[in-house]
């Protein structure tokens, strides 16, 4: 998902990377390319424009850090701004504390409301809500049947009035029905409508006035183009929705519409919908999407974090040792402790360029680190300094002492040896030393 945008960002930044400083000239080149990236990604024209102005201003206004490349610098600014635009932190569904929670789904035709209604129903049912689905799309052929079929698949009741063509009455009755039957959550699936269709917009307004929803969700196709902001604005003016749902994110659309809608109507994006299976629903994480858009990884904050947490001197010593092949298990232990100081491995890996897109597959088990640490701690000082002496009986003792299997110990020693071998192949490069260290640690 969004790999294309990532690739384009990389391309746009190539020009800056490798040049010494950020200048009006090299920035404006990149910004022009960035503009193209954004427009190709369906970010609304105006949103793209203000985004670029803003990034540019931030980039030029600040001094370039000696420790990071211009590319990394701009990446960080882009990332920060994207995260901010996408909504900062994630945002949850509102639940009515005093009565039934009524959730009203609205949006254009074919945006994915019905499927998402069922997904949300299952999601809430799994969280112990007693859910009722309401079939209030009285226009599209067989819309009701679709919802009923989906309801059956997830064992959730579906309210409909077969002979009625009145979406307002159906919605109203469904709330009554839920109250009578002790159901605490009602999800109302409405017909898709164009925001210029006055009659249908009035209908949805009326539904809103009648059932007084706890939450109105605007469902939008992630493949939407420039007009997405207009429909979002019109729906917002009509019903003031509380959240946005971004659908079909399992495709390769770049999802610029999400960015635009968030920027134009200041409403959080609450859920992502990523497939036709009824459990492919996720809470929307703005920061995740932003770093995913960049894909490049948050190099800058990695560098920042690393610098803040690690004693430069110590790191330099480690590097020297690595390169001179005097790196021992004691140093390995130190390195692990440094990593642990810096935060979760998962988030660190996300910052490493090239790993961004694969972060899900990387699936690092942090327990492994604890294990490695415990194994080394069960070794004598001498064993740590000269791992060569670790024969079978020593390994057995260490395994028992640290509560691990002998295979665990063997694996660690093997990995350590491999790492040392690989380290020899690297040439010195101060800026990259941290990345190098990470790149060669294997946690499996």
């Amino acid at each position, binding site marked *: 998902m969004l790999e*294309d945008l990532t690739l384009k960002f990389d391309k746009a930044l190539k020009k800056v990377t490798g040049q010494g400083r950020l200048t009006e000239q090299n920035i404006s080149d990149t910004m022009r390319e960035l503009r*193209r990236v954004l*427009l*190709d*990604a*369906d970010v*609304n*024209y*105006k949103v793209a424009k203000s985004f670029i102005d803003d990034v540019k201003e931030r980039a030029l206004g600040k001094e370039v850090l000696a420790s990071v490349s211009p590319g990394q610098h701009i990446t960080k600014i882009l990332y920060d701004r994207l995260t901010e635009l996408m909504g900062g932190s994630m945002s949850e569904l509102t639940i009515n504390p005093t009565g039934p929670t009524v959730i009203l789904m609205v949006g*254009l*035709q*074919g*945006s*994915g409301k019905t499927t998402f209604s069922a997904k949300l129903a299952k999601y809430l049912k799994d969280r112990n809500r007693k859910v009722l689905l309401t079939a209030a799309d009285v*226009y*599209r*052929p*067989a*819309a009701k*049947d*679709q*919802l*009923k*079929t*989906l309801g059956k*698949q997830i064992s959730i009741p579906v309210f409909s009035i077969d002979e009625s063509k009145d979406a307002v009455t159906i919605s109203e009755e469904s709330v009554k029905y839920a109250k009578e039957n002790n159901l605490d959550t009602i999800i109302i699936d409405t017909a898709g409508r*164009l*925001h*210029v269709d006055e009659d249908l917009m009035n209908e949805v307004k009326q539904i809103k006035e009648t059932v007084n929803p706890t939450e109105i969700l605007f469902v939008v*196709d992630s*493949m*939407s*183009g*420039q*007009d*997405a902001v*207009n*429909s979002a604005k019109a729906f917002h003016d009509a019903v003031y929705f509380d959240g946005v749902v971004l659908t*079909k994110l*399992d*495709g*390769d*659309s*770049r999802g*610029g*519409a999400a960015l635009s809608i968030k920027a134009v109507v200041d409403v959080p994006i609450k859920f992502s919908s990523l497939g*036709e299976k009824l459990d492919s629903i996720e809470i929307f994480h703005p920061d995740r999407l932003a770093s995913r858009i960049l894909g490049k990884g948050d190099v800058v904050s990695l560098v920042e974090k690393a610098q803040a947490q690690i004693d430069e001197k110590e790191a330099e010593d480690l590097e020297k040792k690595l390169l001179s092949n005097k790196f021992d298990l004691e140093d390995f232990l130190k390195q692990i402790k440094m990593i642990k100081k810096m935060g979760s491995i998962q988030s660190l890996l996300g910052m490493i360029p090239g790993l961004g897109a694969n972060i899900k597959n990387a699936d690092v088990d942090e327990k492994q680190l604890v294990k490695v640490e415990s194994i080394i701690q069960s070794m004598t000082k001498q064993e740590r300094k000269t791992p060569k002496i670790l024969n079978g009986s020593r390994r057995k003792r260490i395994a028992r002492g640290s509560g691990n299997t002998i295979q665990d110990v063997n694996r660690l020693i093997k990995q350590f040896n491999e790492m040392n071998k690989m380290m020899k192949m690297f040439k010195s490069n101060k800026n990259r030393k941290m990345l190098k260290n990470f790149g060669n640690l294997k946690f499996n």
Partner: protein
Amino acid sequence: MAILKNINFNKLKQGLSKTKDKLFTGITEAISTKAVFDEDILDELEEILITSDIGMDTAMKIIHNTRAELYYLNDRSKEAIISTLKNEMKTVLLNAIQNTDNSDSTDISTNKPYVILVVGVNGAGKTTTIGKLAYNYKKAGYSVLIGSADTFRAAANEQLDIWAKRADVEIVQKETGADPSSVVYETLNIAKSENTDIVLIDTAGRLHTKSNLMKELEKIKTVMGKVVPHAPNEVYLVVDGNSGQNVLVQAREFSKVTELTGLIVTKLDGTAKGGVVFQISAQQKIPIKYIGVGEKIEDLQDFDASKFIEALFD
């Protein structure tokens, strides 16, 4: 093409009026509020073009040409600038869709049954379009059979069944979860024995990134060829007029699996858009056959490039 002989041109105009309004009220405003022509005007024009999903390349080309023309233009009146711009738009847009040919790919009368396969991403408007096509073919005097090869979506059968009834044509369906190819197989065999003129095959929505579903399309095609050697005669990609640049990827990816003989752009009854059609046509060299301008059975129109542009300018 034959089935939409008497297209109601007003409906197209009406459908596009929002687009037109957006384009030309915007442009007129952009120009009339400036006493002297300057680069700012072109910037505003660029915005208007791009927000119509016309794409960066096409927009840039129009702007570039307009700028060049205006350079030599002595008459800097509002009218003159607008007409220059309109001319440039016409040239560029017509160029983009030049290859558009909305005649049938092969002769219907000598290719019986004439098999039309309809594909596209989820929610694009395939099923609705099948209903509209069936209605139009039927009205034009052809016998029509619909095959419901969307065996995946909940209530897809019921939805298509309603459209078949509205169009008053026959339909072949199997239970949900059945192999779509087997529906196709059966439909074509029935069509052969009944001597049916037109077969319309509806398929499940599929994102072009799902390789297993794309393979399923290949299989459908193979099965078709086994029953009716000349099938499919048409493969239409249905794209949502609301969508942005991703349709270009859709067109490219679907083309890899099966040659597309035409595009159908739906939901053009909304607001400012339609620009996307020029891009697909220009980049993918696939003609635009029809446009959807509403949810009713009559709301399908022949795509006629020059008329489409005329409607924009009118």
